């Protein structure tokens, strides 16, 4: 039975059911992003003290919905699409158990809708973290559990697909690096979901009265084994997408298969220890536990990210130099396709993730430095650099690639797509930098009113803190505009974009497969190994000197900023 089509532009083979699943998951993710984006505006316009848009109850409700939709539903739906792409499409194989994959998708959908309804009803404004003993409605937890079970099924379908590809010998040698990265993400996802089950199932039972007590500290430790690890799925997934994008756009090969894969392996071993980042100023946790876990066992996962930070742009530089862009340190970068949103989105995501997200994350995850940062607005500033730019912008960039390849549509409003990564990155960067500043001045996260209206006592933050929150607000609005541009281009392309396949019907964009005649391939040819590289480029064994300079710049920023924070810590009250 013929079930593959080949994309005439990219040469990728799409299995019929895998293709529909990718589309359905990507569309569901975009819907979650839309909700998250609308909620984001409510959050940012309330924290911008001069505007102070929403009343307190609505603010906390909107903040809860923003967090869950952005950090969980949007990224994980999209990651399911990436898992199916990295297995079925990249390995030219049929998808394992498509019915199970659909069941997983439906569960995720039901879970996401159920959780959103619970938050919308108003008695589950417990924030994404839902710390006990504050209680949400039972279907708040049940929704998350169903969503997680669905995602777990997706992970196993991915693993099954790898097995089928191996059995059917659809490729020669080892799986590609991008698939290896996706495998990393799937393994971390399974760990994450298991942790989530361990804590959310009892919490659900507690919410319906079968268990009478959940220890608040135990909840924090285990919940964060899910909460933080789920963000590590994102890291593994978006780094894989970075490798995919440099491969597709520049014909790049990894500088070293061994180094890049080893770095992914370090993620599997150490990234999930990051639960500790949230427990550093909690009662009664031993210093040894905190030091070992917060540093991912001597920063070995940070080492992995620093390796990818060199090898991702490094592979691009080597490929660009091989094409003759060898002048000076940075011709390869200057002459990159800056007008192509796939590239600009990827590159901004890489730089902002590394320079802002990575550095602030390590600094605030340092055991003692966390004392001056915990629960300030510095924390959301950090994870907007990692998730809202690092992951989300990467996925946006990938979407611009998928619209023609997967959805077979031309981009709608290409000029807007071209501008979008610039607007989104500029807005996000502005918001992040000012919120980092406000956090350093002690402004709290998850806080409705920095004027403390109605409090018996009073406190006034310095004027600079207000100014930073306002400038952060302006940045946030700009970022929301960038997000809206993305959704407009994406949805517009699916509805109004010119069809690249004559036989494509209206519904095919939304997940319904193309006409049967398009799926005219029984089994694609075996995927051959990548061609051997012709020769090495660069000077004195330094293949990518420009990237090396960028990496050293990152290191200098890192070292300076790290010790500035120790210095700041040294100025607060002695305690022990």
């Amino acid at each position, binding site marked *: 039975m013929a079930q593959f089509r080949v994309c005439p532009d990219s040469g990728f083979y799409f299995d019929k059911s895998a293709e529909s699943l990718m589309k359905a998951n990507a569309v569901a993710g975009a819907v979650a992003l839309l909700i998250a984006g609308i909620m984001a505006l409510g959050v940012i316009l309330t924290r911008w003290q001069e505007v102070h848009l929403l009343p307190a109850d609505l603010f906390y409700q909107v903040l809860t919905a923003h967090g869950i939709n952005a950090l969980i539903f949007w990224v994980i739906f999209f990651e399911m699409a990436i898992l199916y792409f990295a297995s079925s499409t990249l390995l030219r194989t049929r998808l394992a158990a498509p019915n199970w994959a659909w069941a997983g998708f439906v569960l995720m959908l039901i879970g996401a809708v159920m959780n959103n309804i619970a938050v919308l009803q108003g008695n589950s404004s417990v924030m994404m973290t839902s710390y006990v003993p504050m209680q949400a409605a039972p279907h708040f937890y049940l929704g998350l559990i169903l969503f997680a079970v669905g995602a777990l099924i997706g992970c196993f379908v991915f693993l099954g697909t790898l097995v089928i590809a191996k059995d059917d010998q659809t490729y020669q040698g080892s799986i590609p690096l991008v698939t290896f990265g996706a495998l990393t993400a799937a393994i971390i996802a399974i760990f994450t979901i298991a942790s989530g089950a361990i804590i959310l199932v009892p919490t659900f039972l507690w919410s319906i009265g079968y268990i009478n007590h959940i220890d608040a*500290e135990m909840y924090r430790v285990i919940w964060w084994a899910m909460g933080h690890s789920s963000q590590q799925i994102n890291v593994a997934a978006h780094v894989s997408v970075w490798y995919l994008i440099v*491969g597709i756009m520049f014909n790049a090969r990894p500088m070293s298969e061994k180094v890049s894969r080893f770095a992914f392996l370090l993620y599997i071993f150490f990234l999930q220890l990051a639960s500790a980042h949230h427990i550093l100023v909690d009662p009664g946790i031993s210093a040894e536990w905190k*030091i070992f876990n917060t540093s991912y066992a001597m920063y070995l996962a940070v080492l992995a990210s620093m390796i990818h930070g060199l090898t991702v742009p490094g592979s691009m530089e080597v490929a660009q130099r091989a094409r003759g862009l060898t002048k000076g340190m940075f011709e390869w970068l200057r002459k990159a396709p800056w007008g192509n949103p796939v590239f600009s989105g990827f590159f901004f995501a890489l730089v902002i993730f590394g320079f802002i997200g990575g550095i602030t994350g390590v600094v605030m995850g340092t055991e003692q430095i966390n004392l001056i940062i915990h629960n300030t607005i510095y924390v959301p500033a950090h994870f907007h650099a990692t998730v809202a730019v690092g992951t989300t912008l990467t996925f946006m960039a990938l979407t611009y690639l998928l619209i023609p390849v997967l959805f077979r549509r031309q981009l709608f409003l290409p000029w807007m797509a071209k501008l979008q990564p610039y607007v989104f990155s500029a807005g996000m960067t502005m918001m992040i930098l000012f919120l980092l500043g406000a956090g350093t001045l002690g402004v709290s996260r998850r806080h409705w009113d920095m004027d403390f209206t109605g409090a*018996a*006592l009073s406190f006034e933050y310095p004027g600079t803190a207000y100014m930073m929150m306002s400038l952060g607000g302006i940045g946030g609005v700009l970022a929301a505009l960038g997000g809206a541009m993305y959704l407009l281009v994406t949805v517009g392309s699916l509805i109004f974009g010119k069809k690249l396949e004559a036989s494509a019907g209206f519904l095919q964009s939304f997940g319904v497969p193309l006409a049967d005649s398009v799926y005219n391939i029984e089994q694609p040819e075996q995927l*051959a190994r990548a061609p051997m590289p012709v020769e090495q480029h660069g000077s004195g064994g330094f293949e990518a000197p420009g990237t090396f300079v960028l990496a050293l710049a990152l290191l200098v920023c890192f070292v300076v900023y790290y010790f500035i924070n120790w210095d700041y810590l040294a100025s607060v009250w002695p305690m022990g």
Partner: protein
Amino acid sequence: MSTFLPPSDRIWWKVPVGRQEIIWIGIALVWCLIMFFMMPYWHVYGKQNLSTEAYQTTPEKYGAEVEAMIEKYKTGEQSGMPVVTPPAGSDVYMLGRLWQWYPILKLEKNKTYRLHLSSMDWQHGFSLQPVNINLQVVPGYEMVIKITPDQAGEYTVVCNEFCGIGHHTMLGKIYVGEN
């Protein structure tokens, strides 16, 4: 192209790694180790470390401890809240509840106190401003930290863990006087 194709060398793990990557991995590893050892170093030589002393408790038990201190050392009232001036160097108690930090403490500069913290209901965040010291306050756990206020002045405890609709009204005070 081979980022998404099977590696060109079948035995890719035997392909030697380039000099540039080796140097970078070396630099990065050294930096990682420096960052790692900064934490134990600070435990020995630094002055800001979080104590790990903590006890399991209940709201009733902890509340009684707080009230006992208030009864002994109460020296005034502000906005309906007791102001307590415990002896220098003693155990001082503060509790978080919906929505106040209770009671108000008066401390002396450069004296070390054992500050006890716990919550009577939900989780709260002890955020001392403007020094910017932030601690998680968890119900069921009594945390004891040694603090040495080294500057006189008025300090505010902001709650920075979401605790319901009145979260933004949850403030407390610590006054530090010259001795």
